[in-house]
């Protein structure tokens, strides 16, 4: 009897992406073949303009590829309608952005509750409890009633992480999460991401900083729209765990 291997969480085959500006085509990604399994902590690394953010946006259903195939949990995503994609965004994936993207003049708890408005699985009466659970996980329990603009950058990014956690998604995408932070806050944010990974979350991180990428178990190097190196060596994993121990 052959044991059927579970479908990978994310699988792309010959993925291409171009941007079109009137008649000019600007190709960004070329022939991306990628497989990411549940529970991985992956960093997509490359210089600015390499296409790493575009790749993350496609993987996170914020953008669509120009050609090629993208299977999510074994399911093809090419034929999905806009509402079906919105549903995947509300239940299966979530984002942490470089510039936090919190709603201004809005409390921490309301910011964290925001995805639950669009999450069909949560009853309105359960929202505060779920939001508080996510806020506890990033250590901001005492600040839940603060307005987002009353917090420091590091705290704001932790609110954004709580917001990404609140729907308990399968993948958390983080786009340069430390890019706007000082090194101490950045370190704290990465520690939280590592803790989440240890608890079983799949995390896909986009960064151009080597020090940030090194928190991950696996680093996909991307350059001019091509994957140039997929570093998932045992040595990487050890290094990542050592970093965690420190």
């Amino acid at each position, binding site marked *: 009897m052959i044991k059927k291997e579970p479908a990978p969480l994310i699988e792309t085959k010959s993925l291409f992406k171009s941007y079109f500006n009137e008649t000019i085509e600007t190709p960004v990604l070329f022939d991306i073949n990628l497989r990411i399994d549940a529970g991985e902590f992956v960093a997509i690394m490359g210089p600015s303009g390499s296409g790493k953010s575009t790749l993350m*946006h496609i993987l*996170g259903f*914020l*953008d669509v590829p120009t050609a090629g195939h993208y299977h999510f949990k074994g399911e093809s995503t090419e034929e999905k309608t*806009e*509402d079906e994609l*919105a*549903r995947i*965004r*509300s*239940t299966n994936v*979530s*984002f942490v*952005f470089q510039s936090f*993207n919190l*709603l201004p*003049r809005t409390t921490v708890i309301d910011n964290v509750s*925001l*995805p639950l*408005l*669009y*999450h069909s699985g949560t009853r*309105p009466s359960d929202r505060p409890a779920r939001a508080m659970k996510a806020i506890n996980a990033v250590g901001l329990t005492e600040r839940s009633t603060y307005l987002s603009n009353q917090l420091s950058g590091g705290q704001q990014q932790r609110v954004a992480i709580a*917001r990404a956690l609140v*729907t308990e998604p399968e993948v958390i995408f983080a786009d340069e999460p430390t890019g706007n932070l000082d090194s101490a806050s950045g370190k704290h944010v990465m520690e939280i991401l590592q803790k989440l990974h240890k608890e079983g979350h799949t995390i896909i991180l986009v960064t151009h900083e080597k020090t940030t990428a090194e928190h991950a178990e696996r680093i996909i190097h991307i350059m001019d729209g091509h994957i140039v190196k997929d570093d998932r060596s045992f040595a990487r994993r050890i290094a990542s765990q050592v970093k965690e121990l420190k």
Partner: protein
Amino acid sequence: MQLRDTVTIALKAVTGNSARSLLTMLGIIIGVGAVVLMTSVGESMQSVILGQISALGPKTIALWPGKNGPEQGAATLNPDFDSLTFSDMEALKRLTTITDVAPIIFVEGKTTYGKEQSDTRVVGTTPEYYLNQIVNAAEGRLHDAQDELEGRAVAVLGPDTAKDLFSNQSPLGKRIEIGNQKYTVIGVLESVGSQFFQNMDDRIIIPFETAHTVAQRSYVNMVTAMATGDPADAIDDIQFLLRRRHHIIPPETGPATDNDDFLVRSAEQAQEILGTVSASLTGFITMIATISLVVGGIGIMNIMLVAVTERTREIGLRKALGARRKDILLQFLIEAIVLTVLGGLIGMLLGLGLNAIIVGIARKFLDRYIFALNPIAMAAALLMAAGTGLVFGIYPARKAAELSPMEALRYE
């Protein structure tokens, strides 16, 4: 996403920038406020006027010498128009469809009492006048058949006239002078207010016989009477009688023509005319309100388009967090409706407040002015405001909903 959430978001967006929201709503506020104010004032005025006519009684009939047409009513200002004679009066009194026929002669000349002077209308008429005008004496007595018979120099004053000439003194038994003739005041009428914007409390009534002698006139300036049944029948009879007596070319009955040398009206007809006036006034107000609401709606659309541009990143974020097109569409649409309905409610309160002030002022001049509302017009104005929000909110809301999440997030 539930509707309650959407409304909460919309309310937050509106109150979050209250100064701008208020400016945005201004068009709607003014539109709805104007409708509420104007319809309320209209309603109050109508009840004042209708109240007076019904106090007069719908069966009261007035008859003037004069021509129909563009110069309608001019005869009352021209005492030389002599088409209604005393023998016409005798014929009118024999009609069965009218009763209490009172001929009127206007007497010219200033009225004086000591140093006090007045330009009040002096009406020479018979005691039937009190019956068809449904008015009683508040003080003293009304003049009677005996006064007529003897052609006595007596006068009955309207309450305002009495106040003008005598302040707080009792006028009874005092001698006033009209023209060069002295009259003894025998009574003061009760207050009846205004009638067709003429103050009926400011008049002096003297016996017809006396007026006849003083004015040296053998025709009458006006006739009032009371219909015994349907006022329309009474008018038909009067027209038939007078056209025959004055040898006016047919038709002998039917509506007034240019050939007539008299005008006849019932209070009921006056009510109908008033109804037409008030209907055209309502139409006019509706037109102004519509224009105002459309202008207000364009303001709302404008600001919603600004809001969509301003909040492009927020829209992108919401979409990234799983909001569907429908959720975004509804959010902005409801925001526009909240803006207009809120504007409508503020406008309504403003209209009511201004109306209350107007009522307070008008009460000083018109005892019968009451605080009246037109709930249908108010509801319609509010509904129209909400409709404006819906219509003018659709375009910006669609624009917001169609943004791609990625482009919206990148927007600077």
